[in-house]
């Protein structure tokens, strides 16, 4: 079944004027342990470093959250993405909070390219500008989308969500292309379970209780129907046998991936 959502609204020819960016050195005053010296050291942490730190702590933070809080965080993340998209589509681009309030060039470049990407999508026909988050590992993107610390701008979270959705669509469209009517769909159910198992806690919370058990039950049922050959295949499964390669790139840490994204944003600005 294919469906298309269309609107007949006038296109939004949105432009963002260059905004004044108040400098923010983000000073952190550290108490000195040496009383005799009586000095105070001021350490400046770059905004890029703050973003990397927030990304590295997201999984730890989610590990201590209740399911109710995780559901709330997921709902808020989705709501923020939706509301920002509506705002951009409505041409409401005058507020100063669209770009990161920093003088860190990497963060400014990332914020600007994310905003350009979002505005491009809101045009009719859409103008597909490069997404600075393209190629970043899925769960690192998720940590940015569902971050509620204010570390990332709405535009950055929107662009991260665009890349996350794209990677999910690539995975599921390939997985579901192998569905057979009345045949063995055990690989489909396994693909869904693999995907679910690797999701961050905040996204798992979006699924109803018992979701995995339900899919596992269908998977087992399919294996039983398909007979010994399917059971043999189950015992020899490995990564290479998967119909769709995993969407979860675990080769690099999220922080390294974000560092690469920041460097790419700078490169896009100078191109």
């Amino acid at each position, binding site marked *: 079944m294919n469906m298309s959502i269309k609107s007949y609204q006038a296109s939004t020819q949105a432009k963002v004027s260059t905004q004044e960016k108040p400098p923010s050195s983000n000073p952190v005053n550290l108490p000195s342990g040496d009383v005799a010296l009586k000095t105070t050291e001021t350490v400046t942490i770059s905004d890029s470093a703050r973003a990397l730190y927030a990304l590295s702590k997201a999984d730890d933070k989610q590990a201590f959250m209740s399911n109710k809080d995780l559901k709330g965080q997921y709902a808020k993340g989705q709501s923020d993405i939706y509301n920002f998209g509506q705002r951009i589509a409505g041409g409401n681009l005058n507020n100063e909070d669209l770009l990161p309030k920093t003088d860190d060039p990497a963060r400014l470049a990332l914020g600007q390219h994310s905003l350009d990407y979002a505005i491009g999508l809101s045009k009719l026909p859409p103008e597909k500008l490069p997404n600075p988050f393209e190629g970043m590992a899925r769960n690192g993107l998720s940590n940015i989308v569902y971050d509620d610390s204010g570390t990332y701008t709405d535009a950055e979270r929107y662009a991260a969500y665009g890349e996350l959705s794209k990677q999910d669509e690539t995975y599921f469209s390939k997985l579901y292309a192998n569905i057979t009517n009345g045949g063995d769909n055990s690989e489909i159910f396994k693909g869904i379970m693999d995907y679910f198992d690797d999701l961050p806690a905040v996204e798992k919370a979006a699924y109803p209780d018992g979701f995995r058990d339900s899919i596992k039950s269908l998977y087992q*049922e399919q294996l039983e129907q398909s007979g010994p050959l399917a059971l043999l295949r189950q015992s020899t499964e490995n990564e290479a046998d998967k119909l769709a390669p995993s969407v979860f790139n675990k080769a690099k840490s999220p922080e390294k991936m974000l560092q690469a994204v920041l460097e790419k944003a700078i490169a896009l600005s100078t191109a």
Partner: protein
Amino acid sequence: MRFANLFGAATLFASMIASAQAGIIVTVKVKNSTTGPAAYTFEYFSGSVAPSPSTILPSATTTFALTSVADTVYGVSP
């Protein structure tokens, strides 16, 4: 923009009933051709949806599947 409103509940309903049997999978592909994001949700369905319903950005496409352990599948009421 709410997915349930756009969906044409009767269309989805009919499609799912047509292929209803235990363990069936119904796939749905949605393309957002508007200039704004589309939030899709559901009011009721029997079975499991993967991936979970979420916002679809402008010009993006999403494919999801509904699986059922029941003999009859129906959902997305108007």
